[in-house]
């Protein structure tokens, strides 16, 4: 083992029932470096970290750590901590109702005697050393999120960690706070701590990291010096598409709105409390457009703002050329907008209710509280859409939670088709469902568009979007950074646009 390597993981594999989460992944961390671990959803980043911190046992592979000459086997997070591997998670796992000093010391050492005075003094020393703007006796909840994050890091550092894992620490911080956190990371780096930095913000990785390891589908794509890896390359590696791989796609119909056509939906300077920057958007009758960008780029937040799913904080909205107010989902529904949410479990299905109730819910809400559908009417609606979409269910009375993911998704789709929308937003309708259903849903989207419904279609799988959309809005770091149409819609162009470089033919 070289002297400057603090951690090396070799040929790590881990399988869950039905999924090979990690396959022969190598990872090396040097002393005093900040190493980005990147990959799209399901790439295996968190599984690798969980293996390293002893949350999951590995199936095979070796882990070596500096200072210990033999292979180590980490069985619990406690053991990882004793070996000098500390993790700070995205959500702060400290106790907000305790003081900073108490948070630094709880769960460590003997509980029998506590010398508060010395504990506070020690804490003050650490805080001063690391330039953390907090007092030892201050209650943690009175600190800003960034400072809380820093206290969590300080706690790890004080436990003499060699390896510090930061799992998306910046996702809930603003720019100013991120800058503070970065200066602390640089400070630690100069002290020789090896930092693994997980983030989906490209800019941040380029700002602070020395090297990058990219994972995809549980496999190692490669390890790169950051200065040798242009952004476009990184994106293509994360997505698994070669830049020159302009696959032969079936010819799409290009959408051309009539000269004098009025958009079905227009937004100007729309923003929401979920953190979208103000954006403009319009969609015409019968058009299919898409929002694309990496995870966390703000594509879901944007469409949620259109539907009024999060608190709308600004902007003007027009439907069919008329000014309207969309403050709540109900308002959007009244204007014929339907929204299939990204997270089916959290926001889509109502688990314990029957398939029938789940299908009629949106239409029922629009019809009104005092005008429930009769059992026969509801049954007829449900039967019609169960047949139309081929939903596999024992009966309309079956609780929706006992259906498979794909069938649940079809039922939610049925719910929105039932309101006969003029504009339908589908956020990741194909996630986590089988290939057959994916194709069915894409076909359905195209059919709806032919019938004159406007559709916004979002998918993590670029091919799906290229196949269905006639216009793509590209987002990065919660901003719209480009719009691609017709000939320009290629994977290469998308990647270049995400990377923020001047568009050039790939």
């Amino acid at each position, binding site marked *: 083992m070289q002297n400057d390597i603090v951690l090396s993981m070799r040929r790590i594999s881990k399988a869950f029932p039905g999924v090979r989460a990690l396959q022969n992944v190598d990872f090396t961390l040097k002393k005093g470096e900040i190493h980005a671990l990147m990959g799209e959803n399901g790439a295996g980043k968190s599984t690798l970290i969980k293996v390293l911190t002893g949350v999951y046992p590995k199936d095979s592979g070796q882990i070596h750590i500096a200072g210990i000459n033999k292979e180590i086997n980490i069985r619990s997070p406690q053991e990882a901590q004793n070996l000098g591997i500390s993790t700070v998670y995205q959500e702060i796992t400290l106790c907000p109702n305790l003081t900073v000093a108490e948070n630094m010391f709880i769960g460590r050492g003997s509980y029998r005697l506590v010398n508060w005075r010395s504990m506070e003094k020690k804490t003050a020393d650490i805080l001063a050393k690391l330039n953390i703007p907090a007092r030892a006796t201050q209650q943690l909840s009175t600190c800003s999120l960034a400072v809380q994050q820093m206290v969590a890091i300080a706690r790890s550092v004080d436990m003499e960690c060699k390896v510090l894992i930061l799992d998306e620490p910046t996702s809930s911080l603003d720019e100013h706070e991120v800058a503070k956190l970065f200066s602390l990371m640089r400070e630690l780096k100069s002290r020789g701590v090896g930092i693994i930095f997980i983030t989906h913000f490209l800019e941040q990785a380029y700002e602070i990291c020395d090297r990058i390891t990219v994972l995809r589908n549980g496999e190692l794509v490669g390890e790169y010096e950051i200065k040798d890896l242009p952004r476009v390359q990184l994106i293509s590696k994360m997505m698994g598409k070669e830049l020159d791989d302009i696959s032969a796609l079936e010819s799409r119909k290009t959408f051309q709105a009539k000269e004098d056509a009025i958009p079905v939906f227009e937004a100007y300077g729309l923003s929401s409390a979920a953190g979208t920057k103000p954006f403009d958007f319009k969609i015409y009758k019968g058009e299919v457009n898409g929002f694309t960008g990496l995870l966390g780029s703000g594509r879901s937040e944007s469409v949620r703002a259109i*539907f009024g*799913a999060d608190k709308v904080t600004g902007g003007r909205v027009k439907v069919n050329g008329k000014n309207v107010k969309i403050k*709540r*989902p*109900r308002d959007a*529904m009244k204007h014929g907008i339907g*929204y299939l*949410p990204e997270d089916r479990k*959290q*926001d*889509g*299905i*109502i*688990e*314990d*209710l029957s398939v029938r*109730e789940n299908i009629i*819910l*949106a239409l*029922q*809400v*629009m019809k*009104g*509280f*005092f005008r*429930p559908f009769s059992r026969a009417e509801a049954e007829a609606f449900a039967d019609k859409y169960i047949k139309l979409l081929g939903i596999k269910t*024992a*009966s309309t*009375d079956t609780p929706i939670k006992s259906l498979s993911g794909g069938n649940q998704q079809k039922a939610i789709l049925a*719910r929105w088709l039932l309101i006969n929308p003029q504009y339908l937003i589908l956020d990741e309708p194909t996630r986590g469902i089988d290939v057959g259903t994916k194709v069915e849903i894409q076909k359905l989207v195209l059919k709806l568009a032919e019938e004159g419904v406007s559709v916004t279609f979002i998918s993590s799988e670029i091919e799906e979007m290229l196949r269905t959309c006639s216009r793509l809005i590209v987002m990065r770091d919660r901003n719209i950074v480009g719009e691609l149409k017709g000939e320009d819609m290629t994977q290469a162009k998308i990647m270049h646009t995400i990377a923020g470089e001047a568009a050039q033919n790939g």
Partner: protein
Amino acid sequence: MAKRLKRFSRSQLVIPVFALFLLIVFNLIRDAGFFELTIITNNLGDTVLSGNIVSILNGASELAILAIGMTLVTASSRGQDISVGAAAAIAGSIFVSVLRGAGQITVPVILIGFLASCAVAVVFGAFNGTLVAIFKIQPMIATLILFSAGRSIAYWINGGATPTVENSLVKFIGSFIPGIPIPTPIIIVIVFGILVSLVLRFTNLGLYTQSVGINEGSARLNGINTVWMKLLSFMILGICVAIAGCINVCKIGLINHETLLLDIEMDAILAVAIGGNSLSGGKFSLTGSVIGAYIIQALTVTLWAMKVPSTAVKAYKAIVIIAIVAISSPVVKEYALRLRDRLFKKPEKLEQSFQEGSIDGGKSL
């Protein structure tokens, strides 16, 4: 019939109905004449029905009504209102103070008194609901405020006294209307029950409440006003509280703010639980809760009949209730299912395929 039985065997009403059945059988074995109905002439000279069934149904009136409201609150807010007893004391006090203020008690006066107590109870319900729905305080903590303050507020309403309302009209409501042999509270429960089922039938109260309780985020994205639905359930419980408080005042003929429907909140929550409803909200069955209320009262009457000292009744009740709640817990259910699978492995499979067939068959009919 067999199909219906099968479907019933999977519904949440199995255990409460079974428990009620066991209680009845137990009483019949203990004393064959337990459920005898007799026609007697009471001290007012009316011909009325009498017997343990009547006293169970009559005694559980307030509880049954409160259990209905409590079920709705549980379903929508995923928590319970522990202030119903105290709120009933307030509603009862308002009722009494209107009656006493009117000079002569007539039917319109009673109606006004009832409406006034309803209004006040709904306002207090809305107060609880606001804390829960808008300020997102846990229901039990939110209602703890009224739970502790309620009886003091009731004390102020009648200036600290425990006034009586001696009047034949009030007695009609509390016991019997001349010519009708069934106690009036039972009739009120039946009427209220019909009203509630009409509301459930002709509005989306059930669908919305359950949606909010099961998945609030999803309900909101489907255009349901989740805050309003929670508020509404607390306000409906307010109406239930007013009815229960007024019935109790009429039964006793006076208002004692300290003892009126004391501890009834716990029984109401229990009724919801015994009825097979999840206390963490979501799907609900009002029938289950009402059956739960009658089980609790039947238990009390049984224990009285067995001459259990009144101070010990609560302990005995607790034992039976623990048994019911434990039997209906998922752990026991799962164990029972596994036991059944092991004992009747082969017939079970046949039965299942038959069941699935029967569902489709039933639909096509």
